[in-house]
């Protein structure tokens, strides 16, 4: 019996010839990620374990992205704990205001995570890097501390579910729509503890940014990781960024899957997840017309350059509706710079959008766009839980960048075709 992509990576990194779902392995870690919130919690835990520095200062990535630039004193104190630790222990990769990005946009950009790697992160959306054919998963701060101390962590090998996407995606239907649709079909615990492997003709043609979006939201179905087999598109992305060798594993033909789920996506319309669960997914035609107060374009899900391009193409020579606040948050300094050079920022500004420095900001209800009671936001982020972006009686609708742009123009949820 063969192995899946996920199993092959875990086997290689734990020194086993073969692993099976359910088996406990201790895996070597190629990278450890933490942000201003989770690193600040992990550092004292690591010290309590009897370690005063990370196992390898070149394999640790600290990214200050949640509460930056700091909205208040408490947030500033928290980041200071991380800064002091990074300076005193000589962490090589510390990303702060001015050179940072939202962690899951930044790490692939910098070539810190490569195909075949095992990486853990103190953030649930660490599963994003499966898009590169790596195994990556989110952990809490105590696991993070253990990883920082020892450079390895125990894991239970997850069973894999294979998703096959048949057909060619219609215009304005993106990776975000595929993953929202999938979560809508299987539910927020539809892949609990499991690996979601995305395959099929629609994935073969999906650009890197769309693949990141899909794997990013695997956690929203409860998955341990999302993963896509690396191919030429992956290679083109990592080639110029990699400073070390990497391994492009593929699932065996006779690999064992717990389940195989097939979707024909050739007629899929843009998807919107209504409040208050990412699985509460509907086609755009069902929700069009709902009034919206704020639109967020950004986050680790849809803050990459191609997301901004899609939105800018629709916003060109258009105006944001007078009752809507459109906030554009480029995912990283690199995305910001590229958007500037391509003239996208000009389009956003002329349309009447506010552009923010890269930050998680409103995505988790931190700052930079908190909602009042009774307000509704359409957002390209990944969670629409009760109170996620502000008041418990505010609402968040999740969608891709095309629907976000159309909605900002119309002042109500709208299909991209309506503003073309």
């Amino acid at each position, binding site marked *: 019996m063969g192995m899946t992509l996920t199993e092959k990576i875990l086997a290689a990194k734990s020194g086993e010839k073969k692993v099976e779902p359910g088996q*406990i392995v201790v895996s070597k870690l190629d990278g450890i990620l933490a942000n201003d*919130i*989770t690193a*600040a*919690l992990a550092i004292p*835990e690591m010290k*309590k*374990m*009897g*370690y005063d520095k990370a196992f390898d200062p070149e394999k640790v990535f600290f990214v200050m992205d*949640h*509460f930056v630039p700091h909205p*208040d004193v*408490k*947030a500033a*104190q*928290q980041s200071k704990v991380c800064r002091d630790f990074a300076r005193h222990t000589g962490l090589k990769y510390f990303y702060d205001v001015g050179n940072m990005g939202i962690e899951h946009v930044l790490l692939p950009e910098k070539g810190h995570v490569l195909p075949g790697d095992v990486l853990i992160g*103190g*953030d*649930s959306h*660490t599963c994003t890097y499966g898009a590169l054919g790596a195994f990556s998963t*989110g*952990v*809490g*701060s*105590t*696991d993070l*501390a*253990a990883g920082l*101390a*020892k450079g390895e962590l*125990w894991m239970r090998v997850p069973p894999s579910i294979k998703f096959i996407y048949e057909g060619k995606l219609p215009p304005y239907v993106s990776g975000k729509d595929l993953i929202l649709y999938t979560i809508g079909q299987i539910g*927020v*615990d539809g892949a*609990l*503890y499991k690996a979601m492997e995305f395959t099929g003709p629609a994935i073969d043609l999906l650009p890197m940014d769309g693949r990141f979006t899909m794997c990013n939201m695997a956690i929203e179905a*409860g998955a*341990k990781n999302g993963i896509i087999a690396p191919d030429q598109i992956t290679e083109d992305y990592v080639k110029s960024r990699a400073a070390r060798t990497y391994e492009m594993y593929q699932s065996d033909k006779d690999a064992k899957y717990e389940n195989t789920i097939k979707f024909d996506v050739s007629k899929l319309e843009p998807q919107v997840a209504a409040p208050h*669960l990412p699985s509460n997914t509907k086609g755009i035609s069902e929700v069009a017309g709902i009034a919206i107060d704020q639109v967020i374009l950004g986050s680790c899900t849809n803050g990459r350059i191609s997301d901004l391009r899609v939105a800018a193409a629709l916003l060109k020579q258009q105006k944001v509706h007078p009752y809507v606040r459109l906030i554009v948050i480029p995912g990283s300094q690199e995305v910001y710079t590229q958007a500037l050079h391509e003239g996208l920022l000009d389009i956003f500004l002329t349309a009447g959008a506010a552009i923010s420095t890269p930050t998680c900001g409103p995505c*988790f*209800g*931190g700052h930079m766009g*908190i909602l009042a009671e009774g307000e509704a936001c359409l957002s390209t982020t990944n*969670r629409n*839980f*009760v*109170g*996620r972006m502000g008041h*418990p009686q505010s609402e968040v609708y999740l969608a891709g960048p095309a629907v976000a742009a159309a909605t900002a123009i119309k002042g109500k949820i709208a299909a991209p075709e309506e503003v073309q």
Partner: protein
Amino acid sequence: MAGKAFVFSDNIDTDLMVPGKYLTLSKPEELAKVCMAGIAENFAAQISPGDVFVAGSNFGCGSSREHAPISIKAAGVNCVIAASFARIFYRNSINIGLPVLESPAAVKSIGEGDEISVDFENGQIFNHTKSQTYAFKPFPEYILEIFKAGGLVSYIKNQANLGGN
């Protein structure tokens, strides 16, 4: 020690346990005060030491914030009983020493305010109000070891003291 049950629905997410705006807090005693603040701002005031949380499936879905189980433990909750847990929350709870028990049978029968106690050694949950007993899935061995050590921090510290790496 018996405590009263607080009953929750399916898919209780970590934003309800500790909303994002409180993520600059890190001390357990501060986090205790905002436990379940996403459900009701002063929820924590109703919790007495020894009380028990009972929930449906996928308890703790959402973010990896360890603030969530820390706040529940610090608020005095004895254990969480659910039909199933979200993966990261489950691991975090074990790591910080908050008992998380899977028992769909218990979840079905326990009502709001029922008096509940737990025998962790023998895997049994007692409902004193309804005079019922439910079994819970025993912990796998590797989790039991971490649990016995009082959490992952002491587990790793003990290993280091034994001359491990």
